[in-house]
């Protein structure tokens, strides 16, 4: 990570030789335009702006004493943020039913209705730009009866995955993260089966919908030290004509990074700059 350092450019006391400046501009101008080219400010010359990530660690994934792959670590990614369709195999499209298309059209005109913007949980399999941690190795083996996924954002939240062989209850009160049961396949793949969702969260910022009939089957693997792969099969007959599968990778965070507190409700002023009312308040 970059640390805050003295800026050389904005400080008028520091002079950059114009020759060097010219070389930079001429030599990298085209590349820079292609790289950014997105707005009136571009990057602002603030030296904390760019995050230099180390290369992905490619050594073998660690194992628990019984040989099961360890998913422990602090990760970012592993699910959709902007558009769940980005996780589809190349060339495929979401099998949207007309009801889904209609709802997405509505949400495109009401993007500030995304519950996530108002500090609601993101559900499954949506991810956030913030880290999460698998808490797997409770007893020193894969025989732990529970497995937890702890999310830093959007709001400090967790998922509990029952690993003791139980089934889903016949009747479930719908919840944001549903009821999850898990099992291992060949000590390499964690399979999480989840039902009992509510229909409130959006799969992504685009508003891709689901209903309370949603059923997700996540398959988590760790092909190397630095990578988690989450392959999710999604069934929801209310909005999709057939099940579909999306894949998202997560990246191991730097050593020493930890989950930080993220209480979204603390000072959420979302809506005030743009003049949007909270669609959930009092409703």
């Amino acid at each position, binding site marked *: 990570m970059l640390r805050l350092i003295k800026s050389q450019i904005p400080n008028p006391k520091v002079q950059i030789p114009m020759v060097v400046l010219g070389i930079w501009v001429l030599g990298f101008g085209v590349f820079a*335009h292609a790289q950014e080219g997105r707005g009136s400010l571009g990057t*602002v010359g603030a*030296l*904390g*702006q760019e995050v230099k990530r180390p290369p992905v660690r490619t050594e073998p994934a660690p194992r628990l004493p019984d040989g099961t792959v360890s998913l422990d670590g602090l990760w970012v990614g592993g699910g959709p943020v902007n558009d769940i369709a980005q996780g589809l195999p190349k060339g495929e499209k979401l099998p949207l039913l007309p009801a889904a298309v209609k709802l997405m059209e509505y949400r495109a005109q009401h993007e500030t209705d995304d519950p996530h913007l108002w500090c609601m949980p993101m559900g499954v399999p949506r991810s956030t730009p913030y880290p999460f941690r698998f808490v797997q190795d409770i007893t020193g083996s894969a025989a732990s009866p529970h497995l937890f996924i702890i999310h830093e954002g959007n709001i400090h939240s967790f998922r509990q995955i029952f690993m003791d062989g139980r089934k889903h209850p016949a009747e479930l009160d719908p919840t944001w993260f549903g009821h999850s049961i898990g099992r291992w396949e060949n000590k390499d793949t964690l399979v999480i089966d989840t039902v009992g969702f509510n229909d409130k969260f959006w799969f992504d910022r685009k508003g891709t919908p689901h209903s309370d009939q949603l059923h997700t089957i996540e398959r988590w693997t760790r092909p190397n030290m630095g990578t988690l792969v989450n392959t999710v099969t999604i069934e929801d007959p209310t909005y999709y004509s057939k099940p579909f599968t999306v894949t998202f990778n997560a990246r191991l965070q730097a050593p020493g990074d930890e989950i930080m507190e993220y209480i979204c409700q603390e000072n959420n002023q979302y809506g005030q700059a743009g003049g949007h009312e909270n669609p959930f308040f009092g409703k």
Partner: protein
Amino acid sequence: MRTKHGIVASAGRVGLAAIFSLFGSVAPFAHHSFSTEYDGTKTFNIKGTVSKVEWTNPHARFYVDTTDENGKMVTWNMELASPSALARNGWTSRTLKVGDQVTVTGYAAKVAQYRGDARSVITADGRSLFGGASDDGRPDGGQGQ
């Protein structure tokens, strides 16, 4: 540059942006939709005094006392990224302090007056800090993740 206060499109900074943009992608952390709150074409550059700092989620904020075009004292509400994003980018809760003289460049709110998405914060000692707020959908960088 048009004035020292208020909304200005800073040609100088755009030039600097071209220089610095070669250094790679911007901070990946974001929470709230930029485009619903801020105008990517409406930039500002103000100088003033930090009157309050909120090291809070989902976004840290600081408030800057300055004067408008008519000489009237106004307070800008500046949005930053979340504390966790800022901390991973080198900030601490003590990076900005009440009384600091700062120059802030960023995008103005779509509707509200005196609200901004801070992109760079230049402190009196010359440090240029990246605000890293609301990256998602912003016109100059963030990928949301």
